[in-house]
């Protein structure tokens, strides 16, 4: 019997779970509020955008393969570099980070779901529709072309006359909303949903870095929200924030962008630190060296991360005092980061190290990321930065930390948790091929770019003249990019082949799992834990293993489990925002069609979109979701 009506008397829960309306197929994915399914949605959507961003990178590298190349024109090149950066950061790696957080965090802290399953779904759908809006620009009059930093005045309507930058501001605004929602959700989840006995200082490192990352999201994203609003108002309403002629100031944009933008870098890298801190102890069969110093270092990095933004702006002329201040604060970040590097090394030291695919990525991460960190300290020196600024040295630096750091971490994490997410082990053989092609390609692409930068090659130029000794290094760089592409294709092949295999991964497929997610089946049932586990120490499962126990000790008897209802409202709300965004973006256009001009120029489309979104919010508020229950007898069947 399919029953959709909410149960009004919640003191009498539904007797059986299957009385609740269950969606199948596409509707199941649209209406799901299960963190494990949302994780998979994040993974596919993030993977799709990662692929698009990767293709853009390949096109950029093909254009730069030789001097005076005419493969792309300058305009298209500008659009590609802008979209490559924006897509990779906001739509590629951040969603994949959220995929891993969603898949793993509730399991690691012994929770049945996140604190706000509805908001979790809403965060995903707003991200997806923001990303779709941004990428619609390719077929609706041209992509944004002012660089991923969208510096004014280049990004103002005077110099950027297409709708490209509008797609950037509105698309990122919507996607950013989703990220903020996700951040708040994970903060609340980690604060209130931990299993009995799991104190803060017993949380796995990945839970800690997720917690701190979410806090950075909470405090950094509102700044870019405002920045994007200001730029949108300048471009669409004719405001003067960045219009020098009317008293505006373009440097203000740079400040606001980087007050968000620098913490954003730590939003990206801290989860990778967490992933590495999970993989290395597992495959060294040792507990993480210096756990509390790791926690301390993570907090310190987050704190310092808000005080260094102006190191992106040394050349704007802030003056010697500000430049010195921001140089010193930037160099300080090397201290907690160094603590982490040494802790990982000391964890491996004397351990029974097994080089599985995840551990290869983790081991490759350490030296690669350290190189990126070292060039970071070089760039932190303000006088030297005047030479490095806007050269390929900077491009090499941030690709070392983001690709060599974060992307290697993500590949490691995906290989590590894949059996937990999908119940199937990825092929170790193909995984190792992925690692070697990817990391070789990576160093080929970006190591030479340090020298290109030092030799004076500017970033963001669409071509260069011959006979400046740039030719060979650029050729090597492009070949390396192709190799990274091959590595990614091997990974996709691995995913495809694995998906044809039957589900059969063990609860603890790596055999040395230390944390709670390895104490339950792969993939976990809808309710995760039949009985909430009792946590008796750091590395909860490992502690039980060393005590000779088969699994976790339950903290509660088997009982009825309350579950949230599936709902399409998050999807509908995001569609509403999407429509409102498009409507606002084209509100000043002449469509040459009376009807279209009427509905856009009078903000009717915007109003309809907002009505859909706010109407859905009202529905959500007025009709309470009492959820449904899974009864003990069904748990036995499962």
């Amino acid at each position, binding site marked *: 019997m399919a029953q959709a009506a909410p149960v009004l008397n919640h003191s009498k829960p539904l007797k059986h779970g299957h009385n609740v309306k269950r969606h199948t197929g596409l509707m199941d994915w649209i209406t799901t509020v299960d963190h494990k399914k949302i994780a998979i949605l994040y993974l596919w959507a993030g993977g799709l955008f990662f692929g698009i961003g990767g293709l853009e990178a390949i096109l950029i590298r093909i254009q730069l393969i030789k001097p005076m190349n005419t493969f792309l024109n300058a305009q298209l090149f500008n659009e590609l570099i802008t979209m490559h950066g924006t897509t990779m950061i906001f739509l590629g790696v951040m969603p994949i980070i959220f995929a891993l957080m969603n898949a793993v965090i509730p399991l690691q802290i012994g929770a049945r779901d996140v604190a706000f399953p509805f908001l979790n779904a809403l965060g995903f759908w707003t991200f997806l529709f923001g990303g779709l809006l941004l990428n619609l620009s390719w077929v609706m009059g041209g992509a944004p072309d002012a660089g991923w930093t969208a510096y004014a005045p280049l990004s103002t309507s005077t110099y950027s006359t297409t709708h490209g930058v509008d797609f950037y501001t509105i698309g990122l605004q919507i996607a950013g909303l989703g990220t903020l929602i996700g951040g708040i959700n994970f903060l609340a989840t980690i604060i209130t949903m931990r299993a009995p006995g799991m104190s803060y200082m017993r949380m796995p490192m990945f839970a800690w870095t997720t917690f701190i990352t979410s806090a950075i999201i909470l405090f950094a994203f509102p700044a870019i929200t405002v920045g994007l*609003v200001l730029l949108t108002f300048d471009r669409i309403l004719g405001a003067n*924030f960045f219009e020098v002629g*009317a*008293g505006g100031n373009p440097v*203000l944009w740079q400040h606001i962008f980087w007050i968000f933008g620098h913490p954003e870098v730590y939003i990206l890298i801290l989860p990778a630190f967490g992933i590495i801190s999970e993989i290395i102890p597992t495959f060294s069969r040792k507990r993480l060296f210096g756990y509390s110093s790791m926690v301390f270092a993570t907090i310190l990095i987050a704190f310092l991360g808000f005080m260094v933004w102006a190191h992106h702006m040394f050349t704007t002329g802030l003056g010697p005092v500000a430049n010195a201040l921001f140089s010193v604060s930037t160099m300080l970040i090397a201290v907690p980061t160094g603590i982490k590097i040494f802790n990982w090394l000391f964890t491996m030291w004397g351990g029974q190290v097994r080089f599985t695919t995840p551990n290869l990525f983790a081991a490759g991460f350490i030296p690669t990321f350290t190189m990126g960190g070292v060039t970071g300290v070089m760039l932190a020196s303000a006088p030297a930065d005047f030479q490095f600024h806007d050269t390929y040295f900077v491009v090499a630096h941030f690709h070392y930390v983001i690709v060599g750091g974060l992307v290697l971490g993500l590949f490691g994490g995906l290989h590590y948790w894949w059996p937990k997410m999908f119940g199937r082990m990825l092929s170790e053989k193909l995984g190792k091929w992925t690692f070697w092609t990817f990391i070789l390609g990576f160093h080929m692409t970006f190591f030479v770019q340090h020298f290109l930068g030092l030799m004076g090659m500017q970033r963001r130029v669409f071509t260069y003249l011959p006979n400046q000794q740039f030719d060979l290094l650029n050729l090597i760089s492009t070949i390396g990019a192709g190799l990274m592409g091959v590595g990614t294709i091997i990974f996709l092949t691995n995913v495809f082949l694995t998906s044809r295999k039957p589900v059969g991964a063990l609860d603890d497929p790596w055999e040395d799992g230390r944390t709670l997610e390895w104490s339950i089946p792969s993939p976990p049932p809808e309710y995760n834990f039949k009985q909430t586990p009792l946590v008796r120490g750091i590395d909860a499962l490992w502690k039980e293993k060393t005590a000779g126990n088969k699994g976790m000790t339950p903290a509660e008897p088997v009982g009825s489990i309350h579950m949230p209802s599936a709902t399409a409202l998050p999807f509908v709300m995001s569609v509403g925002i999407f429509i409102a965004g498009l409507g606002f973006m084209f509100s000043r256009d002449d469509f040459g069609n009376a009807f279209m001009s009427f509905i856009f120029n009078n903000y009717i489309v915007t109003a309809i979109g907002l009505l859909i979104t706010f109407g859905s919010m009202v529905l959500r508020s007025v009709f309470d979701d009492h959820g449904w229950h899974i009864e003990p007898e069904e748990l036995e069947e499962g």
Partner: protein
Amino acid sequence: MTTAHAEAANGTLPHEPEKATLEGRNKVLAFWLFLGGEAVLFGTLFATFLALRNQTNEGPTANELFHLPLVAAATFILLVSSLTSVFAIQAMHRNRPAVLRNWLLITVVLGLGFLGLEIYEFSEYIRHEEFGMTTSAFSSAFYTLVGFHGAHVAFGIVWIGILIAQLSRKGLNVITAPKIYVSAMYWHFIDVVWVFIFTVVYLLGKVG
């Protein structure tokens, strides 16, 4: 949790009904987190305003524009509405839904009064002072900062209005109580932001 639900079914309420269930506690906590983010949002808007406050582009300056009596009236109204929403929560804690509803209604009416004054103020500036969004960097920053606050007030009015309707229909229980508590937090926060707006925008604008 079960206890709280049972009490709600009996028509009685626990002492702090907003925190009686895990869902309620989560909601209150997450709303605090959200307000932390809101602080940054308004902080950035204030920063923008402060950076551009003297960039009048030969248009009206703050000193020429602002009339203190109007601002004082708006301030007083919003301050009183913050007090009435405190009384609303006190009535909620005493399990007096009718009193609660009345205080919420008064809060909404005061909010509407504040919003009316703001709309009047903006329309005066636009019609008589030739001070619009596009006049100068100062005008853009002024309208964006104060307008964002006004939009928050408008959202709060609609929100509390919907909660009043729900209160009449569903009564006061462990599901409606956290919603009302959170909306009161929101309303206080709006008041706190206004304290900074009247100080930084209006009074310091007059001082120069």
